[in-house]
């Protein structure tokens, strides 16, 4: 890169002062004025003229290495690591650790005995060289980050992580405290520990797991061989969080299963690990239950018995385990190992211990002990002779049964019932939480009583065979709340919040607002302005404003909620993450895409840490992020995020769930932007069908779906069908949306778009103007939406033979887009093409040519290869070239455009035919 003194660059820099002065004079001038000035340059400046012209073009254009900020342009360079020589041999050193010998091998990798060899201090350790590849910077970074979290996990019963790194060949390694001990089950059997002593030993394990959970680390692979007991009876847990760590470093292709949270050790896998559900602290509770099972009766509840891993997984997910007491029947050996007889062992286990184990290994995570600590308390209850929680049938269980039994009665509209059930489930959960705190039992009972009374009215028997619409149930609830529970303000506030939220889901916004406003006032009075409880109501109010398109107000509310939850610390982490997600979504609606992206990336990070990447929460953020990326013209990046969201939701939600529809829509839109029309339309149609089934026809979500579908049809040049869809949408929009409203403007703009395509330019121009006027009000002049409408308006004006006005509109749109979307965006390419057409119509050929050149170059960069928009731009440039008599250039562009259209639209398409004729009419040469 260096060059000798006096090279061309040195010479150039020497004339920069002169160039700088000339630029000062020319930068503010119009193109015509620049031409005049250039023509009149003084002789000594004349040699600078070509450079000056090039520099001016570069200053106005937006190409070159500074087009996108550094980290975007050079992301791989920024995060890439240097490749190193692969070399791991026995006796070698990894970090400061010298390998002494091999301790063992397993599915995870190889374990070595190592000793610190840097002379700092003499410390033996076990070094695990993982059979994963962290050669990719992303894996490596994640691995190292996880490692740092684990290094903080200091507990007497957890083997410490001392160090870790990545070997030269890319394999991650971990140095761990070396533990001399035997698996807990073996220890207990060889010492013939009694059931009591086994329980006490096990309590130490539970305590360590609980400690890790409080530090937000889940083990994910608890099993006896990871729970060692030393000769002196000290418990040490190994490999805490390492499954996650391994997963984090893993190559996606080789270990897709662990990526989905699947187990490393099938025998100890929880149902959610087998079925690909979210791995949480409840997964560890399950594994603890299995270990306890084995400790108590010497058997495992699910056996392989020569069956395949698949059969084992199926039995884990579906069959009920025998209680430990019955597994202990006829188990003479197990009884001996527990210093007792089979009959006594059975009696000892039956009852409390069966119940405790049963609750710990429940199939549904929600039916298990909610924390390891809860399991510990119940075991202590048992040891102290107090009644245990597991034996009382839980309220949650009864509530679920109740809901299941009465679902039929409420199911007049199944989808709306789902909305209600979701609300009640949330309340049920809150109820369960509050049950745990005796001080709030009264409130819980008040809520329970209220709900039971409400539901008894829709009990099929009392409803006399009539199907009761959900709306009626909620109305009744709201009416009751107006007078009841005045002496129970906290319970009342929660119910106001729940019913308000259900109203909002039913798109009954004024009713929702009334209840939520009251909920906020009561909650603030009861818990304080900045309490998480008040934050929750702010979230609901924010949702309400979001859904009625008052995004600015929604954003304010969400930011207020986010501030509360962020300040509330660890307990409100999940709520903070969700508030962060809401902020992102609202910024997106406001067209503030860069900010939205930042917020969503942050939410993604929070959710990844909190719930994991296979969770619904993560999927929600990914779906939003896909929309944002797409709005930033980064649709190819959007597709995998949308796809991930869809896959997760399909896995975890019912087929007809609205959020499945949302993910389908996001995916469809991203595909559409990437030029994959056919699959885009299929996804959008499926999305719309789900929404219709769920919401009926008069709902904003259906409107949105119609709108997306129509856009995709237009993109595929299926205008008649697009128009039909738009016509269906318009009256719904006018009926259910307020007159000055973002969504309404979307519809107005899009209907105008169809009018344009059908050649009705007056009508189109009027529509675009109306849309721009609404958006000026809702989003502000400098918004991508106003830019879109003005760009369209310009195009329509051009078609109406008013190129002067057209140029003004498009130039304004271009300036806004360059600023908001960045210069390397599809929006800019589109504006440039139309601007070029306008200039051409005004006879500004040089300007038009420059615009087309830029538009073509940009289109090649921002669109996927052989995109139809590139064809349009090439065709425009070709026509100008032909008019200038540059036939070779014209032919080249036309032929490329023709090839694209033939490929994308088919050889018979009239648009392809049109270009073929143009090529034929070009003079040869």
């Amino acid at each position, binding site marked *: 890169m260096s060059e000798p003194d006096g090279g061309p660059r040195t010479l150039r820099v020497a004339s920069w002062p002169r160039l700088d002065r000339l630029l000062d004079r020319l930068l503010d001038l119009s193109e015509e004025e620049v031409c005049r000035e250039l023509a009149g340059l003084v002789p000594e400046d004349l040699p600078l003229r070509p450079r000056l012209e090039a520099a001016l073009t570069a200053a106005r254009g937006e190409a070159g290495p500074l087009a996108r900020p550094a980290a975007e342009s050079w992301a791989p360079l920024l995060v890439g690591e240097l*490749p190193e020589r692969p070399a791991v041999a026995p006796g070698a050193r990894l970090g400061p650790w010298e390998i002494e010998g091999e301790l063992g091998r397993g599915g995870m990798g190889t374990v070595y005995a190592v000793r610190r060899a840097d002379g700092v201090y003499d410390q033996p350790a076990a070094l695990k060289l993982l059979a994963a590849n962290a050669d990719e910077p992303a894996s490596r970074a994640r691995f190292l980050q996880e490692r740092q979290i684990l290094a903080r996990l200091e507990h007497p019963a957890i083997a410490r992580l001392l160090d870790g790194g990545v070997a030269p060949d890319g394999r991650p390694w971990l140095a761990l405290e070396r533990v001399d001990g035997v698996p807990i089950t073996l220890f207990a059997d060889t010492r013939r520990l009694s059931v009591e002593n086994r329980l006490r030993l096990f309590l130490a394990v539970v305590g360590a797991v609980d400690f890790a959970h409080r530090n937000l680390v889940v083990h994910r692979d608890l099993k006896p061989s990871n729970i060692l007991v030393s000769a002196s009876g000290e418990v040490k847990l190994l490999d805490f969080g390492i499954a996650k760590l391994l997963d984090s470093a893993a190559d996606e292709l080789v270990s897709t299963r662990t990526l989905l949270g699947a187990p490393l050790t099938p025998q100890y896998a929880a149902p959610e690990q087998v079925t690909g559900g979210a791995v949480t602290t409840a997964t560890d509770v399950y594994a603890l239950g299995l270990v306890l099972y084995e400790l108590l009766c010497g058997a495992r509840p699910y056996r392989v018995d020569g069956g395949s891993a698949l059969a084992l997984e199926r039995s884990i997910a579906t069959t009920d385990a025998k209680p430990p007491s019955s597994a202990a029947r006829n188990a003479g050996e197990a009884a001996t190992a527990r210093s007792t007889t089979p009959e006594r062992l059975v009696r000892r286990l039956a009852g409390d211990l069966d119940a405790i184990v049963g609750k710990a290994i429940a199939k549904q995570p929600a039916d298990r002990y909610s924390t390891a600590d809860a399991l510990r308390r119940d075991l202590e209850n048992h040891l102290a002779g107090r009644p245990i929680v597991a034996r009382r049938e839980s309220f949650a269980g009864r509530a679920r049964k109740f809901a299941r039994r009465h679902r039929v009665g409420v199911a007049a509209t199944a989808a709306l019932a789902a909305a209600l059930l979701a609300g009640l489930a949330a309340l049920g959960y809150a109820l369960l939480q509050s049950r745990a705190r005796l001080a709030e039992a009264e409130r819980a009972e008040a809520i329970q009583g209220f709900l039971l009374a409400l539901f008894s009215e829709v009990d099929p028997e009392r409803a006399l065979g009539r199907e009761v619409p959900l709306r009626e149930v909620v109305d009744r609830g709201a009416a009751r709340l107006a007078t009841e529970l005045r002496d129970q303000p906290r319970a009342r506030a929660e119910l106001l919040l729940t019913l308000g939220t259900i109203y909002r889901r039913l798109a009954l916004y004024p009713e929702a607002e009334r209840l939520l406003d009251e909920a906020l006032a009561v909650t603030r009075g009861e818990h304080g302005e900045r309490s998480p409880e008040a934050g929750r109501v702010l979230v609901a109010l924010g949702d309400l404003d979001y859904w009625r398109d008052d995004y600015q107000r929604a954003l304010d509310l969400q930011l207020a909620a986010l501030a509360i939850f962020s300040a509330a610390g660890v307990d409100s982490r999940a709520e903070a993450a969700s508030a962060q997600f809401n902020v992102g979504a609202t910024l997106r609606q406001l067209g503030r895409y860069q900010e939205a992206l930042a917020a969503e990336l*942050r939410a993604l990070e929070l959710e990844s840490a909190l719930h994991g990447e296979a969770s619904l929460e993560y999927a929600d953020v990914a779906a939003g992020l896909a929309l944002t990326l797409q709005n930033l013209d980064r649709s190819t990046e959007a597709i995998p995020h949308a796809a991930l969201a869809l896959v997760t939701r399909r896995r975890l939600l019912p087929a007809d769930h609205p959020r499945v529809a949302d993910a389908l829509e996001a995916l469809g839109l991203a595909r559409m932007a990437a030029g994959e029309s056919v699959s885009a339309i299929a996804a959008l149609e499926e999305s719309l069908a789900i929404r219709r089934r769920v919401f009926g026809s008069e709902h904003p979500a259906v409107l949105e779906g119609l709108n997306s579908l129509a856009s995709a049809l237009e993109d595929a040049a299926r205008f008649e069908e697009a128009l039909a869809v738009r016509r269906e949408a318009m009256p719904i929009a006018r009926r259910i949306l307020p007159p000055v409203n973002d969504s309404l403007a979307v519809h107005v703009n899009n209907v105008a778009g169809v009018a344009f395509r059908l050649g009705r330019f007056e009508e189109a121009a009027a529509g675009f103007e109306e849309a721009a006027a609404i958006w000026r009000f809702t989003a502000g002049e400098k918004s991508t939406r106003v830019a879109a409408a003005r760009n369209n308006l310009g195009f329509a004006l051009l078609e109406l033979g008013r190129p002067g006005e057209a140029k003004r509109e498009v130039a304004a749109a271009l300036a806004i887009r360059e600023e908001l979307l960045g210069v390397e965006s599809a929006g800019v390419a589109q504006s440039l093409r139309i601007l070029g057409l306008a200039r051409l119509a005004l006879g500004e050929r040089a300007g038009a040519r420059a615009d087309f050149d830029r538009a073509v170059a940009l289109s090649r960069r921002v669109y996927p290869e052989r995109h139809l928009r590139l064809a349009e731009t090439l065709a425009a440039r070709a026509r100008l070239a032909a008019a200038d008599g540059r036939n070779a250039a014209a032919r080249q562009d036309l032929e490329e455009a023709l090839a694209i259209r033939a490929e994308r639209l088919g050889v018979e398409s009239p648009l392809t035919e049109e270009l073929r004729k143009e090529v034929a009419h070009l003079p040869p040469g």
Partner: protein
Amino acid sequence: MSAHSGAPDAAGIALPPGEVTRLLGAWGGGDRAAADRLFALLYEELRRIAHRALADQRHEATLQTTALVHELYLRLVGGFKPESDDRRRFFGAAAKVMRRILVDRARERLAEKRGAGVRPSSLDEASLMGGAAADGASLEAQAAEALAVDQALAALERHDPRLAELVELRFFAGCSVEESAELLGLSQRTVKRDWQKARALLADWFGAGA
């Protein structure tokens, strides 16, 4: 883990609260050592954030300069409200650090390439970067480009330091026109104008190599 409330991440460097603000102030008072320490801090943290930003998206390289630098700011300065001069110093420093990291990485990359000579093609990067790889540039090409931009910027610095500072803010710290104007205490109009001129001169520099 008190990670996400604006305080330095538990997984990051442990800093006394307000340390970065203090360093910024000390630097403002002429303390070179404070500036050096700050740069070292920013260097490590920015690299870490960049890695993590990328690691969080398994599939795509959605790295964003703006997001990175603002995250850096939130992490290191967090809830403290620095003086506006400190803000300018912070973003200026962050930009310089980003430039430094990229140049270092570029040098390592090219040196490695010359040295080893056996490095397979950049296939791995291509599959890692997904969408970004579609932009074509191999790591080596990017490295060369980064060094070229660094040199061009050095030339611009000698010609007009103000223009170079703006380019650093906009290109390496991802600051918008508004932010740059606020940080530099200039009108947006002036900033837009300077940006045009800087790009014109840089284009001239690159044009000479073509």
